[in-house]
């Protein structure tokens, strides 16, 4: 039968993804990181900004599990709080990119013709910038605040979402139910949002999980070069930058935030790969 169990597409996606060990590990770790970031105010043993000169560069101890930084602040607490910023920036910028890029892609694919060519030409220009360079440019122009950081990172991810949304839109547009919808008098906007979008959502979500990792990395990179959220707010990139000068005396300053970034990146990529494999049509009959 040509029609697959479409209603369960998302839940089926989850099931197929879950079957892959690596992907399920990725999903669990991602979930843990998200939960710990949300619960940071309760999980963090100390105030992340509380300075204690006596604990300057103190190594990990029973009391301060991951040690203390230049100002004697607790690194574990700062990592937990920093995760909030990194995830918040990553999730919100990807959400913006997903909405803006996804809509542009659907419009380009659905309307076609000149509209399509103009939108995709602009997207190609955006794609030609590496995301870090583009983020740098936007933050440099707008100024380094949290909002601008989110806008900058969202900007770097719009083009890939437009591309990923456009191709399946062009395929779904040809299907009979779109014509049937037009025969029922539905407007183009309604057909795009109510009828085409749910049919291409899984492709967009897979890309979102992969790009979330990129967004977190871009945020860390921008913070590292000093264009991220202003100190004393804890961010992973900012912590690495602060610890950089003392890397040889107190490597834990750099090591633990770097590990945090590494863990979330690996987890998100495993999750994204698993989701991508699960949407592979060759696995339809599993």
């Amino acid at each position: 039968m040509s029609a697959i169990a479409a209603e369960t597409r998302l839940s089926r996606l989850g099931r197929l993804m879950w079957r892959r060990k690596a992907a399920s590990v990725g999903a669990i770790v991602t979930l843990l990181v998200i939960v710990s970031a949300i619960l940071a105010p309760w999980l963090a043993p100390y105030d992340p900004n509380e300075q204690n000169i006596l604990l300057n560069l103190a190594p990990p101890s029973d009391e301060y599990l991951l040690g203390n930084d230049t100002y004697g602040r607790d690194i574990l607490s700062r990592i937990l709080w920093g995760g909030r910023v990194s995830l918040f920036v990553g999730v919100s910028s990807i959400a913006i990119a997903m909405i803006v890029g996804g809509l542009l892609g659907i419009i380009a694919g659905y309307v076609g013709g000149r509209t399509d060519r103009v939108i995709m030409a602009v997207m190609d220009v955006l794609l030609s910038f590496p995301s870090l360079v583009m983020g740098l440019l936007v933050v440099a122009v707008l100024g380094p605040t949290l909002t601008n950081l989110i806008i900058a990172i969202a900007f770097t991810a719009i083009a890939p979402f437009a591309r990923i949304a456009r191709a399946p839109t062009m395929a779904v547009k040809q299907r009979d139910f779109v014509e049937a919808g037009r025969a029922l008098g539905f407007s183009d906007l309604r057909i795009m949002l109510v009828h085409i979008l749910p049919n291409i959502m899984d492709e967009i979500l897979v890309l979102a999980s992969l790009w979330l990792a990129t967004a977190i990395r871009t945020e860390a990179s921008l913070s590292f070069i000093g264009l991220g959220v202003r100190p004393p707010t804890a961010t992973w990139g900012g912590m690495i930058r602060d610890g950089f000068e003392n890397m040889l005396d107190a490597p834990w300053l750099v090591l633990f935030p770097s590990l945090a970034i590494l863990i979330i990146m690996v987890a998100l990529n495993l999750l994204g790969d698993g989701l991508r494999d699960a949407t592979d049509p060759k696995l339809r009959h599993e």
Partner: protein
Amino acid sequence: MSDTLNSPLQPVLSVENITTEFRINGAWHPAVRDLSFSVKPNETLAIVGESGCGKSITALSVMRLISKTQGRISSGSIRLQGRDLLACSEREMEAIRGDAMSMIFQEPMTSLNPVMTIGDQIAESLRYHRGLSRRQANARALELLELVKIPSAPSRFKDYPHQFSGGMRQRVMIAMALACDPQLLLADEPTTALDVTIQVQILALLAELKERTGMAMVFITHNLGVVASIADRVAVMYGGRIIEEAPVEQLFDRPTHPYTEALLRSMPRVDRDRSELHPIPGQVPPITVRTPGCRYADRCPLRIERCIREVPPLAPVGGNPHHTARCWVRADLPVQESIAS
């Protein structure tokens, strides 16, 4: 509005002299030429013809669903209850489609959105056109599912299209089309993709619903057996034109145009021997080929010289104004004087 017959009922749909053209390699070629027909309430007009004769294009023209980039309706008028559809804006057409007139398609397997439940898809049109609340729309959608005889409708309301068979999906399509009580239903080969037994059920259902609602129906098909069972009147199309139009019994009793005659002869019948099947030699000329005369001329055994030169008008047959044909030889046309004007 010009009403040709002295009937008390005004036609629901009257199409006059429409020509629909498509752009092929930069030139416009007509797929439907100078086509006129009308349908009254509670009447079924069947449009019959082989693939490529323009019957589906006719339906899409009435719905104004011809792709704007490749096609256009270059002349004529389409009136739905007196309202000129060709003068309507796209937004006005959106309000009319699915409400005052709706259409069902050939492929029930793919004409439903795979990620929406059956109930939601029927309710969507009611909420969109009638502004019903979710609860009202769902209640009405359930009634519609029962109207189209989906067994144990309440339990299937939340099912998805892939859980339905082809015949059941076509019933759902019919329910969606009828949701807003249209005055006109265009059915484009709605039974072609179905098994013969299911075909009969769907035809019976459509006939029953038409009686019940009094809507007008334009039924497009290539299957003359289907025509015999559902139509009140039949229009036979060939090469983008209606070449014969008659009440259904008359068409079968007295096919006048040589093409209609050949079409009836080429239809397999259980009560006749297989050897009596007569295929029509030759092919339909492609729409890019322009001919000054009758499009059927080069396949026609009765061809006279005039057929190649001039397109015959639709003229009465045997003095009957309700039976018309487009044939220099067979219709009531004076052989000598030229009628083309």
